[in-house]
């Protein structure tokens, strides 16, 4: 056990008495990692459900140009997600979701920069990068709200026709104009569950920003975990925030590309 870091001055401390760091990480960080592992299972279950239900439906075999919404086959994503705020009626496939992806990757970068600033105990930089991260999170949520609104209201001319020959406008959990009913259900459930994670992440980011701005992490009397830096809370919340970005990478591939 000699390779494990001893944080106490007293090197003779037995393992059972504490004083060493399993995996050389503080317990808080380890707990965050294992929570994220369990959360990864939750999201995987949802995305695998998507894969299974999709493979149990017909695929569209024609060309993308001739694609029409129908209940008979799974829709082509670039025909469903082609709207853009302020540009009504113009077909811009995947542009808006591309912007959303960029915003989330960007806010992940500002989060790493905040963690890096925390390692240097640079309070001003932590505040600056946390604010950018919070802004990115709220922007993403706003984009998602718009995306949902558009998805629910549907397009001007509607889409698929139901069994009685009526044109369906928009989407809900019972019918949708884009294709088979489970398509909209899975869209609402999976992007909704992800959006809820983003929302929780923004709340945690606001919390650690508040603590940083009020000097909580600089308080010399504050008890910090063994092996942890003063600003480790930024790192733990950062792990959660990156995980949210990571999930989006998979949601993006499953819903918008494949």
């Amino acid at each position, binding site marked *: 056990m000699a390779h494990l870091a001893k944080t106490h001055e007293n090197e003779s401390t037995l393992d059972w008495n504490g004083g060493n760091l399993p*995996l*050389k*990480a503080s317990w808080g960080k*380890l707990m965050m*990692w*294992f929570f*994220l*592992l369990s959360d*990864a*299972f939750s999201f*995987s*279950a949802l995305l*695998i*459900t998507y*894969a*299974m*239900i*999709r*493979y*149990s*439906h*017909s695929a569209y075999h024609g*060309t*993308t140009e001739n694609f029409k919404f129908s209940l008979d086959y799974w829709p082509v994503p*670039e025909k469903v997600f082609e709207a853009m705020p302020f540009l009504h009626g113009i077909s811009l*496939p*995947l542009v808006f979701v*591309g912007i959303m*992806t*960029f915003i989330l*990757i*960007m806010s*992940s*970068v500002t*989060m*790493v*920069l905040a963690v*890096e*600033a925390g390692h*240097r*105990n*640079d*309070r*001003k*930089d932590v505040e600056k990068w946390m604010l950018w991260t919070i802004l990115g999170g709220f922007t993403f949520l706003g984009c998602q709200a718009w995306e949902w609104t558009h998805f629910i209201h549907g397009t001007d001319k509607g889409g698929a026709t139901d069994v009685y020959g009526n044109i369906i406008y928009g989407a809900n959990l019972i019918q949708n104009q884009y294709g088979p009913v489970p398509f909209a259900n899975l869209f609402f459930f999976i992007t909704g569950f992800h959006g809820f994670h983003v929302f929780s992440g923004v709340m945690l980011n606001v919390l650690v920003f508040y603590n940083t701005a009020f000097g909580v992490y*600089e308080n*010399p009397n504050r008890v910090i975990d063994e092996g942890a830096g003063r600003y480790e809370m930024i790192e733990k919340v*950062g*792990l959660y925030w*990156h*995980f949210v*970005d*990571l999930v989006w*990478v*998979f949601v993006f*591939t499953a819903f*918008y*590309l*494949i």
Partner: protein
Amino acid sequence: MADVHTHSHTEGKIAKPNTAGIWRTFYVLLGITALEFIIALAIPSYVMPHLIKVGVYIILTIAKAFYIVAEFMHLKHEVKFLGMCIVLPMIFIAWLLLAMVMEGGALYIRW
């Protein structure tokens, strides 16, 4: 700004930021995402069949996931055993995905 009471307890100067690696990872992620868009929108399906496209998307997605987890979440620089604790359970996900996709295909044939 020196008289502002902000860095009261930190002795000495604050180190300079070292962010070159972070931005390199960002450019890799941006590049992969751009590549995905090019494949999705600019390459017609008679050049690259849909099934091959799906395979490429999955490889690129896993590459992106690797960069986020290894660099942004710092897992590559943790103790190796911690990395294995997180990555190895993913084999269950791969198994479930394979099983459920096959199950979905079987349901389609029945309907």
